[in-house]
């Protein structure tokens, strides 16, 4: 029982992090109808920017407070992501309005290529680390109830808390601010939003910036867990099943989907993987998502797909 709960918690925390990457997809898809394959590259770009700026800033300005360096690096990396968002809108999206989904998807793959190359060209392609001072020592709880207690990874716990905080902030932003309302309007109907005077171009820049910031947070968290290198962009592949499981247009779906996939992955690896030779977590998430889609083709919370002839 104790082991089961440990696996469950581990899965939930990993799931929260998947949800964080998936959130970037959902935000951009909702507002611009683009399935953003470049999200992985954006995570890599943001994480590289964060890692290198936190290394460079103390050297440029001659201070050595890690807190200051991290804050400065975060702000600079965020600015980078906003510039990226602006460039993407200006150079690519603006010219691709009204194209079918697959063309846009391919365009984001191209953008991903550019970001991969640019990030590694500007910031270097070795492995770097991000240290935002997250505690590493494991935490043992409930040792009265179970034999030996439950072993929890504090780093994972703080990451999951940060992710939850970000999700709350985003929800507030979307529900309570006028920009958020405009974003939701654009998500509902591009044309109607435009006709009441919402500037579509600016909204896209905003939403790609928000997607970039989410990528930055995801990059910082994954980067401090695993180190920053090219492989971090593959995290996006983990987020795809999450997105389709939860529904392409649903923020709560992304979060719940992330949790389901996280738990499902860990459980399957431990309880089924042994019989199949291990390593099944790479495809298990996809098969799980596929199974759910067979019952609900629009994902758990996605907008119902209505066919009109």
């Amino acid at each position, binding site marked *: 029982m104790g082991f089961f709960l440990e696996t469950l918690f581990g899965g939930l925390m990993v799931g929260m992090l998947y949800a964080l990457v998936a959130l970037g997809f959902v935000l951009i898809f909702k507002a611009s109808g683009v*399935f953003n394959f470049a999200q992985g590259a954006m995570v890599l770009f943001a994480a590289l920017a964060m890692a290198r700026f936190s290394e460079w800033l103390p050297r440029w300005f001659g201070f050595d407070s890690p807190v200051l360096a991290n804050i400065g690096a975060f702000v600079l990396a965020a600015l980078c992501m906003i510039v990226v968002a602006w460039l993407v809108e200006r*150079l*690519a999206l603006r*010219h*691709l309005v009204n*194209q079918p*989904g*697959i*063309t846009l*998807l*391919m*365009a984001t*793959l*191209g*953008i*991903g*290529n*550019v*970001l*991969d*190359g*640019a990030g*590694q*060209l500007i910031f270097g*392609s070795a492995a770097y680390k991000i240290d935002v001072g997250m505690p590493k020592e494991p935490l043992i709880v409930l040792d009265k109830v179970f034999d030996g207690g439950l072993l929890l990874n504090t780093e994972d716990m703080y990451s999951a808390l940060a992710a939850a905080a970000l999700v709350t902030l985003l929800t507030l932003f979307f529900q309570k601010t006028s920009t958020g309302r405009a974003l939701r309007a654009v998500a509902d109907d591009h044309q109607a939003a435009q006709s009441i005077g919402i500037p579509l171009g600016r909204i896209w820049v905003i939403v790609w910036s928000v997607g970039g910031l989410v990528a930055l947070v995801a990059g910082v968290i994954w980067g401090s867990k695993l180190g920053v290198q090219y492989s971090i962009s593959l995290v996006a*592949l983990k987020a*795809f*099943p999450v*997105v*389709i499981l939860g529904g*392409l247009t649903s923020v709560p779906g992304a979060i719940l989907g992330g949790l389901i996939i996280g738990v499902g992955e860990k459980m399957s690896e431990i309880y089924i993987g042994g019989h*199949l*030779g*291990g*390593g*099944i977590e*790479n*495809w298990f998430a*996809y*098969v799980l*998502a*596929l199974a759910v*889609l*067979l019952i609900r*083709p*629009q*994902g758990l919370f996605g907008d119902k*797909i209505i*066919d009109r*002839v």
Partner: protein
Amino acid sequence: MFYRENGQFKSSYRADLALFPIAQDRWAMLALAAIAFVGAPLLASDYAFRAVLIPFLILALAAIGLNVLVGYCGQISLGTGAFMAVGAYAAYNLQVRIEGMPLLLSLLGGGVAAAVLGVMFGIPSLRIRGLYLAVATLAAQFFVDWFTNRVAWVTHDSSSGSVSVQTLRILGHSFDTPAQRYLLCLALVIVFGLLAKNLVRGAIGREWMAMRDMDVAAAVIGIRPVYAKLTAFAVSSFIVGVAGALWGFVHLGAWEPAAFGIDKSFQLLFMIIIGGLGSIAGSFFGAAFIVLLPLLLNGIPRWLGLSMSTATSSHLEHMIFGALIVFFLIVEPHGLARLWSTARQKLRVWPFPH
């Protein structure tokens, strides 16, 4: 002026249905075939065969297969690499496990195995649509990646996980030099290209296109979605599987599962988008573009006499490749095939464009 059909009258239905109704096209195609069959083997170097012509032909074949599914039937697939892998490994196992198995039968067997898997992963397409389906096809990719990596039977229990094919023999004739291998690929590509071209012109191709344009409406006018979608998956995966077997047997010779990773799937999708969705000729254009572009980008710094580290140049290559893709999508979303047909139309009416 030179390219117009004035005076070419059709006097039978057969002539009306011809693949190339304009005489100039027929001559151009014959000339192209002559160059490909006679000119290239005489002129091209071994390097050109290995690095350019053979990969181009095989990838064009795979792109034709994918185009049947994505361009004609409208079902986006991101699992092409997996179907290539299945074709390659099935052909390999047929070749290794059955004594005296003819090579061509192995290649076709690889195609059949891929077609079976394609139908299996095509079943969800009856219920899942669009981008959801695209992501769901990644399931095939990751499952096959895992399967070929973990199940030793697939690789004939080779300890390193990589497999190799030494000799290619058909009817006692062995294909050793690059030029011979090129001719083998060329023959297969032409056969399958004609086959695909005729399929998409026929009844079944029209059903696929109806499905692509709007599946509910197609079902209303009496096209069975199950049949149309699953045949598209089967035909597409068959061709892709044969291409995968060729890629392993002829181009690579020895390969491991990583050769058919997700990158290959994306690469093929790029080819058909840049070449033109729903166009057989477009598959060739796209394959040529994607095969030649990295070679060109690689060569440019050398020609300009710039020296840069391999890491820098590979990042730059990445960036330019991505930027060019976005650029092409913006200027010609319908692909190179559309440019080609526009150019032909211009030629037909030149010099009096009205």
